């Protein structure tokens, strides 16, 4: 691990994202350093989730430039909405993982197979090794004993923990959390947050987290970005944003969610 | 019926144009048979659906068995049954009516399920609301249940009508001269089957595409919330 930890791993420069006539991101600039834990907050529809979905190549963007570890998302002669070949997109995806709001586990696979399937098929890791590592990850999220269960037999919190293990099994450098606790009953939020909190100590893992759990954001992140209308309205260390927000919009938003 | 006709089989084009008028006469028979069969299926299907909801177990079970039997046996054999067996009991119907009846019987089994599904899909709460408003069973059906069931029922019925049109060629085996029966007869006379059969196939394809497009528009036009009867 001799890499410079201050080097940017993600760089959005002047990115624009439109859905038909609707502009979601406009002249968007955003940089994340390697290993940094960044929380994105803001009202719904402000573009936070779109940033994650663009990074995961679930959504294309139209203008500007986005790089991951120096690799550009758009290719010079790329075709289609993504302006890149499927091959290039798959290359990018090897570095990124995502945890979804509604878990999106595969209902027809056991917990263990959910975690093992992608390393086995995509990375081509041997089954024994993939299973061994999957069990370690399941142990880490506290669900090794549920390995032969199907997702429908688990609670929402358990499913989300499996989803985190599944994402980690692909050894991403960047892990994206898209409102990971929003679909959970209040009493199940804690177990998922504590797993994420554990990950926050991983030095090499870059984390982007969209959440409405403000106390948690303050606790785990290195930086908090407040989104409004497709731009980052204010960003800084958690204590600055939560303790002494400069912008009126930030104050407004925080008082409405912390009330 | 076709004595005296001559067909010009020199090229497929002259052949087609010379048989087209006769095939189009067959088309009217096809459509009439489907219309008659569909009318029978709509009425009989409703009767089956209501009988099946009867509170007398003997009635609802017998109906269920009859419907299942009609649905799980081939139209062709049912048609033969009606065509050969009814006369043994002194009931002599024209071939066209026998054919329409066979189509109607088979599809009544399908339409009864559509009625049943349509009625059952109307939420239970609607029945309870009708009861709370002290409506009679008849009033509840007429004012609450059926209006809401119609948007569900109509598209499914339309699909069965299209399916029925495509099954009418079976009637040719009991001498109903619809399109395909005519095409075969022309083939027997000229020893050239492909042109008449292709023509009939294309007409069916056209009919199906037109009907599907029409159904699609109808489905969009139907108000989702239901159609009041009065």
């Amino acid at each position, binding site marked *: 691990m001799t890499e410079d930890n201050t080097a940017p791993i993600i760089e959005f420069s002047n990115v624009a994202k439109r859905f038909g006539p609707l502009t979601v991101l406009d002249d968007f600039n955003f940089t994340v350093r390697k290993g940094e834990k960044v929380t994105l907050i803001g009202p719904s529809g402000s573009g936070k989730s779109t940033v994650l979905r663009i990074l995961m190549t679930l959504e294309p963007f139209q203008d500007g430039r986005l790089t991951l570890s120096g690799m550009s998302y758009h290719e010079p002669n790329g075709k289609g909405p993504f302006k890149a070949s499927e091959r290039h997109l798959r290359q990018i995806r*090897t570095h990124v993982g995502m945890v979804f709001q509604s878990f999106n586990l*595969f209902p027809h696979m*056991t917990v263990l197979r959910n975690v093992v399937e992608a390393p086995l098929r995509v990375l081509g890791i041997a089954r024994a090794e993939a299973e061994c590592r999957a069990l370690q990850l399941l142990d880490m999220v506290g669900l090794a004993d549920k390995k032969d269960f199907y997702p429908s037999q688990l609670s929402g919190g358990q499913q989300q923990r499996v989803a985190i293990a599944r994402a980690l099994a692909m050894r991403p450098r960047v892990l994206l959390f898209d409102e990971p606790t929003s679909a959970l009953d209040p009493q199940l939020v804690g177990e998922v947050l504590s797993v994420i909190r554990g990950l926050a100590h991983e030095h090499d893992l870059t984390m982007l987290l969209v959440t409405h759990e403000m106390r948690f954001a303050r606790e785990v992140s290195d930086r908090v970005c407040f989104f409004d209308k497709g731009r980052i309205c204010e960003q800084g260390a958690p204590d600055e944003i939560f303790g002494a927000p400069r912008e009126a919009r930030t104050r407004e938003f925080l008082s409405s969610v912390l009330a | 019926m076709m004595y005296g006709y001559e067909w010009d089989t020199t090229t497929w084009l002259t052949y087609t144009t010379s048989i087209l008028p006769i095939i189009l006469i067959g088309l009217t028979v096809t459509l009439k048979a489907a219309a008659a069969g569909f009318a029978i299926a709509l009425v009989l299907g409703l009767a089956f659906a209501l009988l099946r909801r009867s509170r007398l177990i003997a009635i609802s079970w017998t109906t269920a068995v009859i419907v299942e*039997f009609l649905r799980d*046996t081939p139209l*062709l*054999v*049912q048609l033969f049954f009606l065509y050969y067996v009814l006369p043994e009991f002194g009931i002599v119907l024209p071939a066209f009516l026998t054919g329409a009846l066979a189509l109607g019987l088979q599809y009544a089994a399908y339409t009864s399920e559509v009625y049943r599904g349509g009625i059952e899909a109307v939420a239970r709460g609607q029945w309870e609301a009708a009861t709370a408003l002290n409506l009679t069973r008849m009033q509840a059906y007429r004012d609450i249940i059926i209006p809401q069931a119609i948007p569900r029922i109509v598209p499914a019925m339309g699909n069965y009508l299209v399916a029925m049109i495509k099954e009418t060629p079976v009637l040719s085996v009991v001498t109903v001269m619809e399109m395909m029966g005519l095409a075969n007869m022309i083939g027997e006379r000229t020893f050239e089957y492909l042109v008449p059969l292709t023509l009939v196939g294309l007409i069916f394809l056209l009919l*199906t595409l037109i009907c599907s497009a029409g159904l699609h528009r109808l489905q969009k036009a139907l108000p989702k919330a239901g159609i009041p009867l009065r």
Partner: protein
Amino acid sequence: MDWTAYLPMLWQGAFVTMTITLASIAVGAVLAFVFGIMRVEGGPILSTIALCYTEVFRGTSLLVQLFWFYYALPLVGLSFDPITTGILVLAAHAGGYGAEIVRGALSSVSTQQLEAARALNFSRLQTLFRVSLPQAIVEMMPAFGNLAIETLKLSSLVSLISIADLTFAAQSIRNITLDSTSIYSITLLCYFAMSLVLMVAIRVVERLVRRGQAFPQMPRS
């Protein structure tokens, strides 16, 4: 004359009917998956080909198709025995409807599942075979069951291209004995019994698929 003397003939016919039905279902299922997948995943050219196939075989009447191929195939030098022609046409017909079932089920797989597969970097084929199809196949089963029964019923039409199936046997016996009532009643009951057996078989297959893919709490339609 006593019709019971003709039971062996009916039995032989029933055997032919069963054979043709099962063969058509098997070949039809292959066609259904091939063309259904082409519709969804095939890109502009392949999906148009699949669309034409389904529209032609769903849009024209089965009896017209049977006669057409019965007369047309020899003209292009392909002379199959009638049974092969019958099976191929029935299979193509069932395949046309089946392809629509496959297409419908595949396109009803939720986008969230597809996004999850994407986030795990599955290729398109891996997504299809490991994520979409295993989930879609459960959705397809009830419709496939109806299609199988439909194929059994429609197989009676092959008697009209001189294949000695159950319906053909019934016709022949009636022409000899003229005892329509008993013959056609027995024949209808035979078909009904075969349908019931087929339904049970379908239930078994459905249960296998369901257990294999384990949807413990999936609501049944």
